[in-house]
């Protein structure tokens, strides 16, 4: 399932002022490809990611995932689309503190009934991210790297076509950041999805297939 971003414009209204963030961003990513989006703070990296993840609509332009424009869907349908086609890994892991590792992983499968296979897949994924022995632990009992690995497992639980990572190693030390990056790429290879990673870490960016840079609201291939 390909990702197509065409001429996306995004402006924020703050009081009477209109703040332009994106000014015609376009790029395509084929299924199985990975891309890193780089740029200085405030360049709109996360905004691009949020628009692709349907968390925020673009002011203008198109986003197509597998040829479908998710913004044409109703709110419930868009939620389902997001649930089935998109996986998120946030800089802050956003794990639910009251749930165990396994439960956190299956959370996306709970949004719609009938996804009974979720738990088995969660176990497999957690095994693959190296946390098979910590299924019942709570987030508070894990290290930062481990939490992010749980977040990656959670993002992949519904086999999303697009995996979006927003500074996934931003809160980790060098060693943990490397491990997480390797894991991401390994799983990306296995799952054959579109991987979009926002980072300002150029070392990390080097490890992905393509690198894009956002400057003054536009996107440039590096």
């Amino acid at each position: 399932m390909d990702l197509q971003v065409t001429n996306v414009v995004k402006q924020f209204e703050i009081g009477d002022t209109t703040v332009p963030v994106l000014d015609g961003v376009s790029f395509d990513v084929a299924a199985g490809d990975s891309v890193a989006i780089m740029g200085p703070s405030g360049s709109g990296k996360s905004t691009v990611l949020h628009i692709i993840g349907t968390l925020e609509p673009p002011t203008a332009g198109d986003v197509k995932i597998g040829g479908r424009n998710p913004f044409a869907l109703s709110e419930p349908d868009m939620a389902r689309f997001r649930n089935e086609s998109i996986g998120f890994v946030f800089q802050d892991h956003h794990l639910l503190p009251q749930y165990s590792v396994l439960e956190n992983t299956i959370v996306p499968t709970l949004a719609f009934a009938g996804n009974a296979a979720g738990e088995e897949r969660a176990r497999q994924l957690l095994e693959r991210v190296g946390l098979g022995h910590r299924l019942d632990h709570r987030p508070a009992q894990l290290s930062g790297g481990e939490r992010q690995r749980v977040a990656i497992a959670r993002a992949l639980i519904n086999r999303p076509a697009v995996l979006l990572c927003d500074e996934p190693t931003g809160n980790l030390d060098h060693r943990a950041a490397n491990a997480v990056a390797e894991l991401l790429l390994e799983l990306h290879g296995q799952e054959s999805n579109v991987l979009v990673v926002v980072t300002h870490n150029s070392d990390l960016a080097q490890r992905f297939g393509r690198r894009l840079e956002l400057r003054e609201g536009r996107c440039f291939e590096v």
Partner: protein
Amino acid sequence: MLRSLTHHWRVNLAVTLAVAVCAAVLTGALLVGDSVRASLRDLTLDRLGHIDTSLVAERFFRADLVDELAALPDFTAGFERVAGAILLRGNAVHADTRARASQVNVFGIDDAFIELFDEPTTSAVFQSQASDRQPAMSFARSSGQLFPSIVINASLQRELGAVLGDQLLVRFRLGSEVPRDTLLGSREAEDVVGTIRTSLVEVVPDRGIGRFDLNPHQASPLNAFLSLNDLQAAVEQPGRVNSLLLDRRGDSDADPQPLLVTSLSLADIGLGLSAIEGPANTTLIEIESEEFVLRPGLVETIEAAARDLRAPTQRLQVYMSNSLRIADRQVPYSMVLALDVLDDSMPFGRLNLLDGTPAPALGADEILLNEWTATELGASTGDELRMSYYVVGLDEQLRTEETRFRMAGTVAMRGLAVDADLTPEYPGIEGIDNIADWEPPFPVDLSVIRDVDEEYWDAYRGTPKSFVAADTGRRLWSTRYGATTAVRVAVPAGVDPATFSFELGSILLERLEPQDYGFRFVDIKSQGLEAAAGATDFGQLFLAFSFFLILSALMIVSLLFTLGIEQRGKEIGLLLAVGYPLRQVRQKFLAEGAAIAALGGVAGLVAAVLYGKLMLWGLRTIWLAAVGSPLLYLHVLPATLVIGFAISSFAVVGSIWITVRRLRRLPPTRLLAGVTRMPAATVGQRRRRGWLAPLCFAAAIGLLAYALAGDQASNPGIAFGIGALLLTAGLAAFATWCRRARGRVRSSSFAAISMAIRNSSWSPNRSILSVALVASACFVIVTVAGNTRDPAREAHVIEEGAGGYDLIAMADVPIHQNLNDVAGRFDLGFDATAEARLKDVRITQLRLVPGDDASCLNLYQPRRPRLLGATDELIDQGGFRFAALSAELEASPNPWELLRADLGPGVIPAIGDANSMQWILKLPVDGELIIEGERGEELRLRLVGTVQDSIFQSELLISEANLLRYFPGRSGFSYFLIDAPAGRDVEVAASLEDRLERFGFDATRTADRIAGFLVVQNTYLSTFQALGGLGLLLGTIGLGVVLVRNVIERRGELATLRAFGFRRAFLARMVLAENAFLLAIGTLIGSASALLAIAPRFALAAVELPWGALLPTLAAVLVVGMLASLVAVIGALRVPLLPALKAER
């Protein structure tokens, strides 16, 4: 601080409102207490007018005493006014409709009395009553008016349905100088009950004079006023009254008792001194009583006075014998004199035998006959003589007894033997020309009177025909009033008899205590005002009722304030990071909290007045059964507002302090990062807490088993213990679950629910607090419902409480006949039809010492409860269910026998109703209540047992023997327990009420009486339930606040879920389910604990929980709780996605 308060105005406003609720409820409850007390005080002042002190004597005395007292300078210095009046208890009947009212106060009054109520009331209690018209208390007859005028109060008018001009029959107890339970006392109905037909000329409102009553009770009395002259004529006591009512001057503390002594005459206390001719030109002063018997103390006082005057005395005891028989010859109806044979030195005359020798001293079984009688009987010395005579039994019925004597000699008809003055002037006998015309108060068979008897009567009148020893007389014919019928004092030679008589009288007046004759002043107003403090402190009661309301408000204060602090976590972190000491930060927040508490407290005081008003409105309307008076109005005492403000501020600041104190547990770095959640409990803490649930549960089960096995099923303390333990166990178990949060979230159709259940453990403390509140409130609601009494379903309880009796009756005028006896009933006018209706009916007649109603129907604190004399029959038959027995006395199988225990002089064993003792008299078993006896002496009533849910809630029971010992003036029976054959109770009641109408006989089904008490109990419970319900409502709102807070704090989490494709509807379901779960857990823990706590009572008796009322209440709790959670749901749906996600960074 002001800027800080205004900047965070939303949360501060919410906290202020919660503080206001707390202050309003707390202060409002205190205001209710004040208002009840002040209203009772107003009622007391209103009903007594200017009357401060009263004297109500058992006997009538000269009305002139009023003027004599008023003429004393010492009296006028201390007292403004005095009025004499007749105060009686009786009943009234509408002459046409036969509408009847019992327990009517019948007053004979004059202008002096009316002046005691000359000022219109200014009491707030009566301000609501529209009419300020001063009624005319004029008894002048209008032209053509046949019958005396009567004025009645509005309550009596309502009872009788009378209008002006109607004729009313007023009946009352007629006084009698002679005790009615002695041979010479009349027990005939027409002598006991007086009746006057009157014309209604005025109806006065139930206030001021219309409310006049010496007994404190919040219910309006039924008052009938007649002119003093009319009532004096009706009671056949012209120129006499039975009470004095005094208006004290300012704050004078003058004691009127000594002044009374100077005005009283011997005639006022029923004593007569008459000079009679003694032997050898001597003069004797004979002292007799209108009672025809001199009480033992009085005899000794007379003898001592005579000794001081160096005058000898002689006791005389004359009694009536029905017959003197030797073999088949008899002399009917003659007097017998009991005296000690005197020696020659005594100036009272002697008995001489026929041969002129002095009569010998008599043995216990010896008798002397006068010559006339000896001749009639053909008696010789040594003959056996049988004397029959009447005695009056404990049941006040005449019984014929016979005693055999040995004839010791014949007395010559001269000297003392022919002294006609020996015999008092007996009613119906003295002054009658022929024996055949006698109308004595006891039955005589006039057919046995012979001509010779008439001849003796003509020659010697009532001169005794036989003589026995004084000891013999005392043994055979003593009553509790004494034995001596007269004392003679010989005037010493050379002393003027008139002077001697005056001196003797003066000494007697000086030495006799007027209170021994019922002349005792009582500071009725100060006693009434003391009693107005109330048996029940409604302030405390409403504080207890409002407990959950206050708790809920405090919880919300704490939650909201915590929310406010947590919202400012970064500010706190910053302050700490830049070097502010923690204490200073705490003080800053505490100061802000105090300011909010003060602001909310002031607002709460305004609301408190409204809350108090609302509660008093409730007491006047929906909870009227609990107070029985619609005359309770709000009284706002500034001191109470200050106290309420102080207590609520203290509670609020305390709750805020606890919140602020917790700040130390969060390091500045976490606060700066926006983390405000408290760290989880340590493993050690969790382990320790883990033991709590099983421990409490085990203890509860143990207590439950004890309750079931140990006959403690009805013990409220044990039930509460079981409930509290189970509640703690349930909450502890929930807390443990929350902290461990077991159970797995799974993919299924119920994912939202399973997530919700797990989410409730997100903030264990808040969840536990919410569950605790809901559980406690449900516990109260279910417990209260479980204790609600349904008379229809509790036939066995009523049966036990009624002791097997079907009817209970009271008479305004005591009845002296035996209602179980055909002859007694015949005397009372029962005809064949009425007799047939009373077939197989058993009536237990009891004596009653009037006093204050000790039941929950009386709001005033009873000072001297009504006393009932338990007869031997009642004691021996046992029955009733005992709640508690004396630990100090050895119990016999029949606990009633404890009433016979000898606890020493002045200490009287008593049994009372458990509820009345606990809540009204506040008298524990083995505790003592000090009351005044008939003569003002101190008596200690020791509670030796209590009976459960009984008909005896208004009175205390003592043995009849003790009642007669300490209240000897109580003759007649006023309280009746009736055992009627199945299904005939109504018919029996109607028959008795009809025949005994003039006595004001009023019968009630025992079941109705107990049900009446249960209604009061239920009303208190429903008050508790209503305020508990309000608390629960506030609690559920608190629960909503918890959820809203949770949603706000978890906005990042909710945004994450939405990022993963969770729909809004799912999240709404999840938040709703969370609330439902907490509500359900709370309801379950609270209800189950309550049900198990009251289970023993249900196991004991076939009572049912009122599910019909309970389930809707609990359902309403759930619905309101769910509605409150909708707010949280709306909050959840409004969470903006990206800001929430970004805020987490």
